[in-house]
């Protein structure tokens, strides 16, 4: 379950502190809501997400990168044009290990960096929530809880009421995209 584009509309409540948001978010999950998301200037332990697959991906790419770096060196120095360099062995494992290490780290780092943006589908300059007036404070001092309108647990008035129970600064309802 990941950050949604709210194609089906969304009900959102704006809070003034991370604590309030945290409380609300936990409560809503206990109520059985599943299509929940939070927006906050700092990470808030509210919604629980499934473990990321990013580490496995990074490991795989790193391993491949390392292997490739070693193979390149072997091909260049030991296979393609082996030269007598100071009487040293052409296939110099000990020497090759260093670029291999660097290759591993580099490819792993690239994987992690581009991997996370791929998972988060960034860059994404536009998003429905940006249409909400004053949503820009979400990166400063406002904490939003968002419930998908299509969440089976709730309905328009029910969800909005339940949101109100946590006395947010305001509640906003985004209607479905005409396109969707």
């Amino acid at each position: 379950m990941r950050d949604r584009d709210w194609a089906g509309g969304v009900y959102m409540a704006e809070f003034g502190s991370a604590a309030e948001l945290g409380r609300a978010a936990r409560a809503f999950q206990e109520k059985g809501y599943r299509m929940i998301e939070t927006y906050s200037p700092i990470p808030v332990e509210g919604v629980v997400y499934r473990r990321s697959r990013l580490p496995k991906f990074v490991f795989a790419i790193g391993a491949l990168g390392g292997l490739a770096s070693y193979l390149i060196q072997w091909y260049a120095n030991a296979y393609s044009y082996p030269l007598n360099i100071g009487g040293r062995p052409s296939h110099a494992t000990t020497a090759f290990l260093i670029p291999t290490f660097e290759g591993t780290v580099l490819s792993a780092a690239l994987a992690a960096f581009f991997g996370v943006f791929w998972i988060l589908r960034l860059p994404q300059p536009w998003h429905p929530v940006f249409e909400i007036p004053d949503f820009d404070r979400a990166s400063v001092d406002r904490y939003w809880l968002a419930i998908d309108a299509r969440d089976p647990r709730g309905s328009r008035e029910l969800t909005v009421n339940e949101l109100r129970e946590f006395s947010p600064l305001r509640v906003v309802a985004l209607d479905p995209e005409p396109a969707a």
Partner: protein
Amino acid sequence: MAALFPRWSNTAARASLLALALLVVGVPLGLMAFVRSSNASARYEPVKQPIPFDHQIHAGRLGINCVYCHATVMRSPTAGIPPTQTCVPCHSTVWINSSELAPVRRSMQTGKPITWNRVDRLPDFVYFDHSVHVNKGVGCESCHGRVDKMSTVYQAKPLTMGWCLSCHRMPAGQLRPVEAVTIMGYTPAVAQARLGPELAAKYHVRSLTSCTTCHR
């Protein structure tokens, strides 16, 4: 108030990222492709000469042996560009008044050499020796191509270091009997796979890939 960016900007952003990635990968690949192309090595481009000397006629139709003009190929690093006097014996009887041969006559009178344009160019730090190659059974054709089919001569082979190495690593593939080095369109009597190694043994041909074989 409305969002900072319009909706389509998402697509735009991703598209431009993709383009960037393609650029990063594409440019080096493009360059590598270019240096291997004939544009980079000036291959296949006929080189204009002061006299429209036609190898197709002389080497091809008339079947004059390469060595008749390139006389020092067997004993000198340079194959030798024929001195003007080489042209005279024949051309004092044929094409005597041809305007195209005017430069030859002028050169004989004034003693000034004819200025030919170089076709096969190696960098000055490459020391290629014709004599040893032909004496070991490497045919003219192997590096110069079917000169007998070129009316205006052009560089027929890449003449890159990699190309030289391909033969220096496995010379047997290019060897022919020394008698046959000047033959154009030579085909071995028996399979090269068998003949090559035999000749290599006969002429003591070794695979030479040490740098100072060519660079001094």
